[in-house]
């Protein structure tokens, strides 16, 4: 079992719900301090978004943030160097599109991620059918592959995705790209169908934008992922204090 999964299973056994905030790497010069503020406020793991020019699965907020990070010169090398300066020890999970790793080289990418303290990866445009090379490259580097399950995923695919997922299984609450949503979504149904075939920790994401939505999601799931709503705080000019307040409000809501 990959160490990320061992860690997250142990977390679940303590009864604590996992809170996983998402950051766009390189969005601001002090983004590393934002990550540290989130961990200080009770994040259990952090998703590090690696900016890509054509983020097919992202809504306007993360698109805009990725563009800004790229204009600031962010690259896989630069953000990995910055990750080494982190003074926290929660698991880091890279989230990006396959072309970034494909272009950098799969072995080289997973080596780079591992040496930067990253222990998991979410690559939303890499379905298991195309993932065998990537899974091979990540196997020797202890990088857990996290697959997403969508409300549209039929039962036969769902079993396969849940079996292949390492670390946790990502349950999409909505048929939508990342971004704010006021609907309660289908997270409960998706989590229940994953539970029926696997005991892997299961977190809900996509459209979780308020502490109340996070609490509702955690009634059924083992944790939540909060992306666009937090990135918006930073796009609005928020600093480390604002990040800390934001994450604290989610922490209180799900504890």
């Amino acid at each position, binding site marked *: 079992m990959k160490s990320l999964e061992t860690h997250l299973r142990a977390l679940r056994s303590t009864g604590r719900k996992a809170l996983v905030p998402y950051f766009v790497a390189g969005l601001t010069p002090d983004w590393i301090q934002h990550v540290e503020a989130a961990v200080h406020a009770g994040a259990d793991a952090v998703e590090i978004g690696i900016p890509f020019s054509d983020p097919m699965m992202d809504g306007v907020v993360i698109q805009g943030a990725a563009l800004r990070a*790229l204009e600031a010169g962010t690259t*896989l090398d630069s953000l990995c160097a910055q990750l080494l300066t982190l003074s926290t020890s929660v698991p880091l999970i890279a989230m990006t599109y*396959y*072309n970034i790793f*494909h*272009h950098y080289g799969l072995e080289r990418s997973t080596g780079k991620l591992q040496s930067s303290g990253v222990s998991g990866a979410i690559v*939303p445009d890499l379905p298991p059918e195309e993932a065998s090379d990537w899974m091979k490259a990540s196997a020797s580097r202890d990088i857990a592959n996290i697959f997403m399950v969508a409300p*549209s995923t039929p039962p036969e695919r769902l079993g396969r995705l849940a079996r292949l997922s390492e670390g946790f299984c990502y349950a999409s609450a909505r*048929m*939508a790209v990342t971004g704010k949503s006021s609907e309660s979504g289908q997270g409960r149904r998706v989590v229940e169908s994953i539970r029926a075939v696997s005991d892997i920790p299961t977190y809900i994401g996509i459209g979780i934008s308020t502490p109340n939505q996070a609490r509702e999601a955690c009634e059924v799931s083992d944790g939540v992922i909060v992306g666009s709503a937090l990135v918006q705080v930073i796009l609005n000019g928020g600093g480390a204090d604002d990040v800390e307040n934001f994450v604290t409000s989610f922490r209180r809501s799900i504890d």
Partner: protein
Amino acid sequence: MLFRSERNEVSDSHTFMSAPDERGHFGDFGGRFVPEALMPACLELETAFIDAWRDPSFTTEYRQVLREFAGRPTPVTPLDRLSEQLGIRIFAKREDLAHTGSHKINNVVGQTLLTKRMGKHRVIAETGAGQHGVATATASARLGLECTVYMGEIDTERQALNVFRMELLGATVVPVTSGSRTLKDAVNEAMREWVTCVDDTHYCLGSVMGPHPFPWMVREMQSIIGIEAAQQLKDLGVENLDMVVACVGGGSNAAGVFAGFANAPTRLVGIEAAGGSAVGKGSPGVLHGMKSLLMQDEFGQIEEAYSISAGLDYPGIGPEHAYLARSGRAEYFAIGDSDVIHALQVLSLSEGIIPALETAHAVAWLLQEAGKEIPLGSTVLLNLSGRGDKDVAQVREILRGQR
């Protein structure tokens, strides 16, 4: 009419432009790189397409609509004066004479019929120059399907008349303001929208690109160009065709015409825009659901294409073209903006045909390479993929600026 897929089942596996493997690969390229939310829709589409394409009632209706509505078969025209000027024998497959002014109608007739067959009532589409958008709006109006077209904001300005055409046909045009605000971003936005509405909406992709089965399906629906042309040339007494030349953005008109000659001793030549040259300047990568050749920087960020023609303004190319290029079966060359207007004028003056700016790239290559890459005395088929009506305002501005 013989469909490629029927042929494939009886031919050996070494033929070019047969079906991809079961996961949609053409050699190292193609595949299906989409978010999980879209996987079921891609799988459903693949099943529906295979089923429909083998069903004589579907293909009969498809052929009938192409005949009665789209104006097929389009003729093959000998370009006598240009042939004489250049010392090569040129025939043009006249897709410019198809309904809506380009080859795009072949694909959308097929995909809209498939949409109905799948029980969906709405289509979304991306468009660059607006030709695919107009064709989709047209075929949707004919079947009473709702239609929304995503178009880069820059392209809505360059091709304002096509926006109005789509609106006249009942479609909603959504200007895309993200990224480079051209075709690449229109595809991103259409994919994002498709995630939210896969249950009742088909994504009517306009070229031989995207996730499996689109590159294969669109090529099959465009292969009528090459199949017709091969027969028509035979009827004209042309025994040996030396070369087929077509412009390439995503590559649907080229794939369609190449399909008729892929296993004949004919050179297949695709002409890219110099500013959107995925074969010439690209490297393997993953974008828009496919692995193909892409223009990208050293970090794997996709570069913005620039071309005078909105339809070739795309940093990638269909995966089967990437395969044909790497296997050496087809050759690809690039033509810069500055040669395109001249080529459009030459074809207009010598043959009485105003080509689309996209098509004019292929014409420019003939002008440039007759007697060089194209040996004198060769017989060449030019796929005249579209007419220039949509471009005349832009061309007028450019020519005024040159004076």
